[in-house]
């Protein structure tokens, strides 16, 4: 019990961010027309590519001699970049088509 309370107390700012972000996420998506579901999903998909920031941090915190860790980190950064770049590029391609209509 003590541990849990301490954990919550020490991370209270993070927890605020989490709770507020949940509501923002729900609100923002609330009234989307079905037409935009696919691009929206694809856009959201690109945004969680922010996990790449974590991969970069891991790399920066790894001692340069630790080759195995560096290799793993390298793979993680590649994956993260694929998620980010591929995600945004695909979304843009989809939306580009919507634009032509006018």
């Amino acid at each position, binding site marked *: 019990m003590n541990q849990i309370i301490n*954990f919550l107390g020490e*991370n209270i700012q*993070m927890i605020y*961010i*989490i709770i507020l*972000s*949940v*509501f923002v*996420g*729900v609100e*923002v*998506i*609330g009234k*989307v027309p*079905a*037409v*935009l*579901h*696919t*691009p*929206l*999903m*694809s*856009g959201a*998909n*690109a*945004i*969680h*590519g*922010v*996990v*790449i*920031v*974590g991969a*970069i*941090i*891991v*790399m*920066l*915190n790894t001692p*340069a001699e630790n080759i195995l860790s560096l290799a*793993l*980190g390298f793979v*993680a*950064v*590649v*994956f993260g*970049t694929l*998620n*980010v770049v*591929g995600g*945004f*590029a*695909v979304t*843009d*391609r*989809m*939306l*580009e088509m*919507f634009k032509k209509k006018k």
Partner: protein
Amino acid sequence: MEIKYILDIIYLVASVTFVLGLKMLSHPDSARKGNLYAAFGMTLAIVGTILLYNHSDGYTTREPIKIILILAAIGVGTVAGWLTASKVQMTKMPELVSLFNGMGGACAAIIGLMEYEHNLGKTGALATIIAGLIIGSVSFSGSVIAFLKLNETMKKPIRIPKYNILNTVVMITLVLFGAYIVYAQPEHLFLVVLLFVFALVYGVLFVIPIGGADMPVVISLLNSFTGLAAAFGGFLYQNQVMLTGGILVGSAGTILTLAMCKAMNRPLSNVIFGAFGGGTVVGSGAEVNGSIKDISISDTAILMNYAKKVVIVPGYGLAVAQAQHVIHELELLLEERGVEVVYAIHPVAGRMPGHMNVLLAESNVSYDKLVEMEDINPQFANTDVVLVVGANDVVNPAAKTDPSSPIFGMPILDVENATNIIVNKRSMNAGYAGIDNLLFYQPKTSMLFGDAKGVLAKLVSELKQM
């Protein structure tokens, strides 16, 4: 002025662009800009991290070799991601989204594997790491399976006996195993790697029995999983941008998943546990009355030429046949002759909600010609000809009349109210859901067999001669 604050501000800006981007993505006019905003914020966050990040305990170093490796990795990922994204056909969009989603999951899982050792002794941090590791891995292997399924490399849903029990047991074991690792904190990585493998297996088990028609829902769900995994990473590093980005996608993805389920009128649990068309449910609930009637291309052309109003119902078959351009040609030709033409878009037409709109937009079909289900349904009564191209389940009256049908309750397009119904299909094979369609046997319905692209091209040339 502390450098840390500059990075914090960059993260703040990036977080705002994510919220703004998502917000703008939900309106057709601002969507593209929203995507670019979010991409801009992401670039800021990445560059800022490389240049300015420092661990509070001073672990961070910037040897040239590390910076070079990071930049090289980003280079490789950018080129590969960009090329795939710009080369892929629009019909393959859903599986691509799935694949990119899996990459994010894998990234989160690797972070978990690497951070474990550094955080021994800190229970809270370890719990975060293990949670991120499990969710990331499940998302990765699940996405890969979803990719293979949509790709049709893996065709039939695979049935495992007592699947639901097996699945639940594996899931509970996975959670207990994770909890044990957090509690016991083994110094050796072996158990953590084992957990990683186990989570991968669970991801496979989770997706493998689900049929292709439900894949969009699954991808959307896995999408929010990856968001969650990213958020756990953010929690671990006290990194606000990862946290906001991850949680936003996690909650938005969940809402999106539920919206998709609603469009199909099936509860999420039904999608995950009771796969479509699974062995027992494929009932022929109603008896088949009447017979199939063929129609020739020239008769179809005559019928359409003299119609006042034609409604086209496009389905995935249209996309598979790459017939979205020729159907637009048909539409223009008919409009020239004074026929009113619109497209009836079922919310789940194509392979993802909105997928059909993207495909038709690709071939320059005007946006206001695409009419959504609620708006088009009352119009069928004064429609002369409905042309169903490669759609099946979305026009199956069994969804309304046959409680034993697996699609019972799904809202459908009421095409049967129109005067004439022409259905173009390659053969009499059942649709995704694997069930018979009584619409085809109705006296008002005529079948126009053949590949959509070929048939429509002939129809266009026939019309031109009239």
